[in-house]
C-alpha cells in the first residue's frame, strides 16, 4: 500500500476516534470552546488531507460536517440531533476508510443523504422546518429530517434535554471560515486554548426562545453580560474570531509544540527491539555470572556500566510497549451515549484511572471484553430512569469504570448501581437452560450461582434487545480474559448493583525473579508476587508449626498457611536434604490476589532479571509453571506461577471441603466410614493395625510374670490366666530381652486373649480401604493408613489360637440354652467387617452365611435359602440396607425373618428410616456386645413365640 495512504489511514482513524469522544463531551458541554475547536481542527485536517490524496467522497462528507461544526463554533445552538448527525457522519467516514484500507480506493456510493442533512442543518432549522422533504433525497434523510423538524416544533417548549437555541442561517460565509482556519496554526503545532467562556455567545437568539432557555443557560455561562451581545453585527463577531485566533497563536507558542515530539514506530520494530533487549539482558547476565567467579577481574568496572545501561535500555523499551488503558476506553463514551438514546435511559459513565498503563498487547485483547461489559451494564444492569426514581435511587444510572495497578496486576472494575442480579431469577434461568438441577442449585452458594453468568449461551436479559440479551457474551468475555492469563469475577447485590472485577497480569517479557532451590532443582519465582522472605529458625521464633498435618507459620501475630513447594511439584527430597533443610527452610511469603501464603523452599539464591520464554505446548497444561528461562550460567529453569500454586492450594482446600460436605451429608454411601485403628508393630518394621473397637485394653505385662505352660505363654490377668498369642512369624524369644511386654487384650465374654506386640505406634481415624486382599492367613489385607502401607490383622485368625473352642462354644452363661444352630445371613459390603463379625457371630452360636451386597443376598433368596435372622449393613454401595429391607418387607419367603440393621450412624432420622424400612433393631457397627445381645433377645423372642 501507498505509504502516504497508509499514514493517512492510521492518522485519520485515530482522529475520528478522538472526535467521537470529544463530540459526546461537547454535547454535554456545548459551551466548551476548547472541545469544539479540537473537533473542528481534526475534521478539518481530515478534509484537507482527503483533498490532497484525491478522495472525493471522504472529502465532501468531512466538508459538510465541518460546515455544520463551523456553525456551532460560531455560536449556533448545539442540538442533540446535530451531534447525532455528525456522529453518523463519522461512522460513515469510518466505513469508507475501512473499504479504503482493503481496496485502496474509495467505495462506490453516494453520501448525498448525509450531506444534504448536514447542509440543511447548517442552513438552519428554519429552512428544515419549512421544506424538509424537498431537500432530503432518500428515506433515511427523510426520517432524519422528520426528527429535525420535530425538534423544531419543540423549540418553543422549555423542557428540553439539551440546551437548545434557535439558530439562524449562517451569517459568516463558509469562505470566511475557511480562510480563518487556514490562517490559524496548522494541526501539528496547534494547542487548544484554555476554555474561553466569553466566546460562546448566545448570538442572535430570538427573544421568546432566549427567555425560555435562559434559566438553563445562565448557570453555564459565567459571564451573562456577554449575552447582551446577542444582536451584535457580523463585523464585530468577526473581530471576536480574530481575537480568538490571536490568542490561540500565542498560546501555541508559549506551550511549545509537545505533540511534535512523538513519532510513529511500527509495532513490529518495537517487538523486535524488545526481543533484542531480552537477548542483551541474557548475555549481560551470563557475563555477570562469569565475572562473579573472578574476584579481581578488570572487566568488573565496564561490566557494571554495561549492566546499568542495559537495565535502563530495558526499561526504556518496556515503556514503549506501555499504553494508558484509556486508549481501550476511548470508544466507550460514544457507545454509552448511543445506548442511552436507544434505550431511553440517562446514563452517567465515569472513568477513573484512564492513565493506568499496561502492555499494548494486553490492551488490544481486553478492548472488546470491556466494551461488551459496559454495554451489558448499561442495557440490563441499569433500570429505566423512571424505575430508579420509584426505587428512590438517583434518576441517572451510573456506570463506573476504574483501573489501577495492584501487585503486578492491573485491576479493572466495572461497577453499576443498577438492579443487581436476582438469585431467584438466576436460578429459574439456570433451570430453564438445564444447566443444573434444582437440587444442585439449592446447594450452591450465591457466588457459585453467579458464576453461571459466565456460562456459554447464558443470558439474564428478559428479552433480546439490539444491544444484548442474546447470550453471546459473558462466556466470550471470560474466555478472552483468561486467554491473557487474567480472571474475571462478579459480585452483585439485588437492588444495589453489579460489580465486575477483571484482573490482568502484567505479562511482560522480562521480569525480575527470585532463584530458589527445592529438592536440588532450581526454579524462578517472579519477584512481583513475593512479599518477603522468612528464614525459619527455632531461636528467632519463626518455626513451622502443624495443625493437624497442615503446616503454618506465625508471622507477626498472623497465621500464614504454608505450602511445601517440593510436594506441589511432586519432588522427593533425599534424607540428606531433609536433614540439611530441617528448621532452616526459607519461606517465601507470596501474595496472589487477596490470598497470602508461604511457599517453603530449601534455599534462596539471588534475584535475576529473567527473560520469560514461553513453554513448549507439551508443558502448557502444567499450571504450576508460567514459562521457562535461561539463566546466566546457561541452564534452563522453570518459572513458578504463583497463581498456579494458589489454585492448587485452593483446589486442595476445595476438595477437603467437599469431603467434609459429604460427611455432613451422611449420604456418603460410596465412602467407607472412618474407622479408628490401632497401629502397632510386631516382629518387623511393617505397620500393622486392628480396629480399636475390637481391642478391650492395652496392657504392659511384666515379662517375668509370663509363664509357659503346655507350650503356651500365659499371663495372670485380672485373676485369670490369659493366653498370649504371637502374630504369625513373630519370634516369642523377642520377649525375653525386655522387662515389660506390651500386649493388646481382646476379650469376648469372659475370655481374654493377649496379642503380643512390640510397640503401639498410633491411634488413627481413617477411612479404611483394603487395597490388597491378603492370601496369608492372619492378615486381612493391606491398606493405606495415614499414607503408610499397613497390614490389617485378622483377629479372628488368632482367637482360636488362644482357645481352641473360642468359636465353637455353644454354652452361654445365660439361661437360654440355644441348642439349635440358627442360620444367620450377614450382609455387609466391607470384607473387613464380614471377616470380623463372622467369627463373632459364629462363636455366639450362629451358622453364618455372608453376602457382600443386597443383590447378593437377594440371589440367595432366589435360590430358596431361608434364614432365621438377617443382619445387614445400612450403608452399602448400590443397593443400600434400607432398600434391601424394603424389598424384603412383604416378601413371602423372607418377610417374616427378623432383620437387624448395622450402621455406624446413630442419627435418629436414620434409625427412624431403618425402622420404617422394616428393620427390627438398629445396632452400632462396633457394638459387638450389643449385637450379640440383640440377637439373643430376638432369638429368645422367636423361641418364645414358637
Amino acid at each position, binding site marked *: 500500500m501507498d505509504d502516504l495512504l497508509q499514514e493517512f489511514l492510521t492518522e485519520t482513524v485515530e482522529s475520528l476516534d478522538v472526535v467521537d469522544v470529544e463530540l459526546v463531551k461537547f454535547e454535554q458541554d456545548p459551551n466548551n470552546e476548547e472541545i469544539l475547536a479540537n473537533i473542528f481542527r481534526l475534521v478539518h485536517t481530515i478534509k484537507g488531507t482527503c483533498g490532497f490524496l484525491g478522495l472525493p467522497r471522504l472529502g465532501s462528507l468531512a466538508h459538510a460536517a465541518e460546515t455544520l461544526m463551523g456553525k456551532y463554533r460560531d455560536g449556533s445552538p448545539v442540538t442533540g440531533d446535530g451531534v447525532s448527525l455528525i456522529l453518523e457522519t463519522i461512522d460513515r467516514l469510518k466505513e469508507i476508510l475501512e473499504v479504503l484500507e482493503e481496496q485502496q480506493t474509495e467505495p462506490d456510493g453516494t453520501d448525498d443523504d448525509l450531506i444534504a442533512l448536514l447542509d440543511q442543518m447548517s442552513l438552519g432549522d428554519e429552512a428544515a422546518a419549512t421544506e424538509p422533504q424537498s431537500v432530503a433525497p432518500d428515506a433515511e434523510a427523510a426520517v432524519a429530517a422528520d426528527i429535525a423538524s420535530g425538534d423544531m416544533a419543540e423549540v418553543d417548549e422549555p423542557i428540553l434535554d439539551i440546551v437548545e437555541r434557535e439558530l439562524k442561517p449562517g451569517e459568516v460565509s463558509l469562505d470566511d471560515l475557511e480562510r480563518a482556519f487556514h490562517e490559524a496554526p496548522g494541526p501539528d503545532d496547534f494547542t487548544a486554548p484554555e476554555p474561553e467562556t466569553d466566546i460562546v455567545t448566545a448570538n442572535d437568539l430570538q427573544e421568546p426562545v432566549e427567555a425560555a432557555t435562559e434559566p438553563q443557560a445562565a448557570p453555564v455561562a459565567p459571564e451573562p453580560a456577554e449575552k447582551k451581545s446577542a444582536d451584535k453585527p457580523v463585523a464585530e463577531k468577526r473581530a471576536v474570531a480574530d481575537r480568538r485566533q490571536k490568542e490561540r497563536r500565542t498560546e501555541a507558542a508559549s506551550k511549545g509544540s509537545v505533540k511534535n515530539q512523538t513519532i510513529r514506530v511500527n509495532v513490529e520494530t518495537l517487538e523486535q527491539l524488545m526481543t533484542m533487549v531480552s537477548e542483551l539482558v541474557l548475555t549481560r547476565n551470563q557475563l555477570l555470572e562469569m565475572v562473579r567467579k573472578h574476584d579481581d577481574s578488570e572487566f568488573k568496572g565496564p561490566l557494571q556500566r554495561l549492566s546499568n545501561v542495559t537495565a535502563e535500555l530495558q526499561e526504556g523499551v518496556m515503556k514503549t510497549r506501555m499504553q494508558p488503558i484509556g486508549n481501550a476506553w476511548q470508544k466507550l463514551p460514544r457507545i454509552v451515549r448511543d445506548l442511552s438514546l436507544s434505550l431511553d435511559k440517562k446514563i452517567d459513565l465515569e472513568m477513573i484511572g484512564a492513565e493506568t498503563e499496561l502492555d499494548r498487547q494486553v490492551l488490544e485483547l481486553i478492548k472488546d471484553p470491556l466494551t461488551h461489559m459496559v454495554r451489558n451494564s448499561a442495557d440490563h444492569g441499569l433500570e429505566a430512569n423512571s424505575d430508579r426514581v420509584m426505587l428512590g435511587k438517583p434518576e441517572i444510572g451510573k456506570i463506573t469504570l476504574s483501573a489501577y495497578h495492584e501487585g503486578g496486576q492491573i485491576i479493572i472494575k466495572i461497577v453499576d448501581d443498577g438492579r443487581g442480579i436476582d438469585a431467584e431469577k438466576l436460578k429459574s434461568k439456570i433451570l430453564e437452560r438445564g444447566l443444573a438441577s434444582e437440587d444442585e442449585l439449592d446447594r450452591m452458594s450465591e457466588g457459585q450461582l453467579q458464576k453461571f453468568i459466565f456460562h456459554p449461551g447464558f443470558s439474564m436479559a428478559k428479552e433480546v434487545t439490539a444491544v444484548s440479551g442474546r447470550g453471546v457474551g459473558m462466556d466470550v468475555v471470560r474466555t478472552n480474559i483468561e486467554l491473557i492469563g487474567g480472571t474475571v469475577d462478579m459480585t452483585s447485590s439485588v437492588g444495589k448493583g453489579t460489580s465486575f472485577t477483571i484482573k490482568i497480569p502484567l505479562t511482560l517479557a522480562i521480569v525480575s525473579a527470585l532463584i530458589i532451590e527445592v529438592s536440588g532443582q532450581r526454579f524462578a519465582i517472579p519477584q512481583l508476587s513475593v512479599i518477603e522472605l522468612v528464614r525459619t529458625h527455632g531461636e528467632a521464633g519463626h518455626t513451622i508449626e502443624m495443625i493437624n498435618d497442615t503446616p503454618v507459620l506465625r508471622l507477626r501475630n498472623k497465621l500464614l498457611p504454608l505450602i511445601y513447594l517440593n510436594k506441589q511439584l511432586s519432588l522427593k527430597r533425599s534424607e540428606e536434604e531433609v536433614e540439611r533443610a530441617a528448621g532452616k527452610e526459607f519461606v517465601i511469603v507470596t501474595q496472589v490476589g487477596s490470598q497470602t501464603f508461604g511457599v517453603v523452599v530449601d534455599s534462596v539464591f539471588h534475584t535475576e532479571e529473567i527473560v520469560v520464554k514461553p513453554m513448549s*505446548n507439551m508443558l502448557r497444561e502444567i499450571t504450576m509453571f508460567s514459562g521457562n528461562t535461561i539463566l546466566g550460567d546457561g541452564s534452563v529453569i522453570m518459572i513458578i506461577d504463583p497463581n498456579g500454586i494458589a489454585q492448587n492450594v485452593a483446589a486442595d482446600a476445595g476438595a477437603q471441603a467437599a469431603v467434609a460436605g459429604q460427611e455432613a451429608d451422611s449420604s456418603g454411601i460410596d465412602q467407607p466410614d472412618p474407622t479408628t485403628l490401632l497401629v502397632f508393630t510386631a516382629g518387623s518394621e511393617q505397620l500393622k493395625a486392628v480396629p480399636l473397637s475390637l481391642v478391650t485394653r492395652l496392657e504392659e505385662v511384666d515379662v517375668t510374670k509370663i509363664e509357659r505352660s503346655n507350650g503356651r505363654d500365659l499371663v495372670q490377668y485380672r485373676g485369670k490366666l490369659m493366653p498370649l498369642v504371637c502374630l504369625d512369624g513373630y519370634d516369642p524369644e523377642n520377649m525375653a530381652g525386655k522387662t515389660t511386654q506390651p500386649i493388646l487384650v481382646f476379650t469376648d465374654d469372659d475370655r481374654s486373649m493377649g496379642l503380643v506386640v512390640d510397640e503401639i505406634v498410633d491411634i488413627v481415624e481413617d477411612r479404611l480401604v483394603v487395597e490388597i486382599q491378603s492370601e496369608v492367613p492372619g492378615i486381612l489385607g493391606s491398606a493405606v493408613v495415614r499414607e503408610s502401607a499397613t497390614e490389617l490383622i485378622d483377629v479372628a485368625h488368632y482367637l482360636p489360637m488362644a482357645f481352641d473352642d473360642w468359636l465353637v462354644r455353644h454354652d452361654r452363661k445365660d439361661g437360654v440354652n440355644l441348642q439349635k444352630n440358627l442360620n444367620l445371613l450377614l450382609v455387609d459390603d466391607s470384607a473387613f467387617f464380614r471377616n470380623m463379625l463372622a467369627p463373632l457371630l459364629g462363636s455366639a452360636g450362629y451358622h453364618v452365611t455372608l453376602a457382600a451386597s443386597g443383590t447378593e443376598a437377594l440371589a440367595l433368596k432366589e435360590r430358596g435359602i431361608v434364614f432365621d435372622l438377617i443382619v445387614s449393613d445400612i450403608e452399602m454401595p448400590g443397593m443400600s440396607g434400607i432398600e434391601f429391607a424394603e424389598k424384603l418387607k412383604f416378601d413371602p419367603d423372607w418377610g417374616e425373618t427378623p432383620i437387624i440393621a448395622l450402621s455406624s450412624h446413630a442419627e435418629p432420622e436414620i434409625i427412624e428410616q431403618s425402622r420404617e424400612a422394616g428393620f427390627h433393631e438398629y445396632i452400632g457397627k462396633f457394638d459387638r456386645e450389643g449385637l450379640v445381645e440383640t440377637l439373643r433377645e430376638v432369638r429368645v423372642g422367636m423361641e418364645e413365640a414358637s
Partner: protein
Amino acid sequence: MSEPQARNQNNGPMEEFVTVIIAGQLFGLPISRVQDVFMLKDMTEVPLAIPEIAGVLNLRGRIVTAIDMRERLGLPPRAEGETAMSVGIEMDRESFGLVIDRIGDVLHLPVNEFDENPVNLDPRWRKVTQAIFMLDNQLLVLLDVDRVLELGDREVAA
C-alpha cells in the same frame, strides 16, 4: 498414513533418512526434518511433566524440549552410563530433541519399496511409524516425526 501410499504410486523417487538406534532397534527419521544432532548436556527435568518429556535444555540460546524416545516407544529405560544423544527437530516454531541412543548413517531409500506397518505391530509403535523398510540385515522403522511429537495436549487434539 496416506503419504507413503501416495509415494508408492510415484515410481522411482528416493528419500533420505537419518538412522538412529534406540534400544538396539534401527529407526529412520526423514532428513528434511532433522535440524541437528547434539549431546545432552545440563538438561533440566520438568516436574509434573508427562514421562515422555525428559527435560528442557539450552541449545545455543533456544530452549529445547527433550523427548525420551525410549519412554515414547515403551522401551526399557537406558541403563546407567549408556550414552544418549539428541536429534533436533522443529515443529510449529518449537524446538524438540528426540533422545536416542546412537546416531547411524544417512540412507537413500527408494520410496516404492516402503512396506506398510505389520498389523500386529504394537499400537504405540504403529501410531508413530510411517513405514517399514527392509534392509539386507535388519528392518528399519521409519518414524513419522509429527506423530512422535503428538504428546500431551496435542494428543488430545489429534
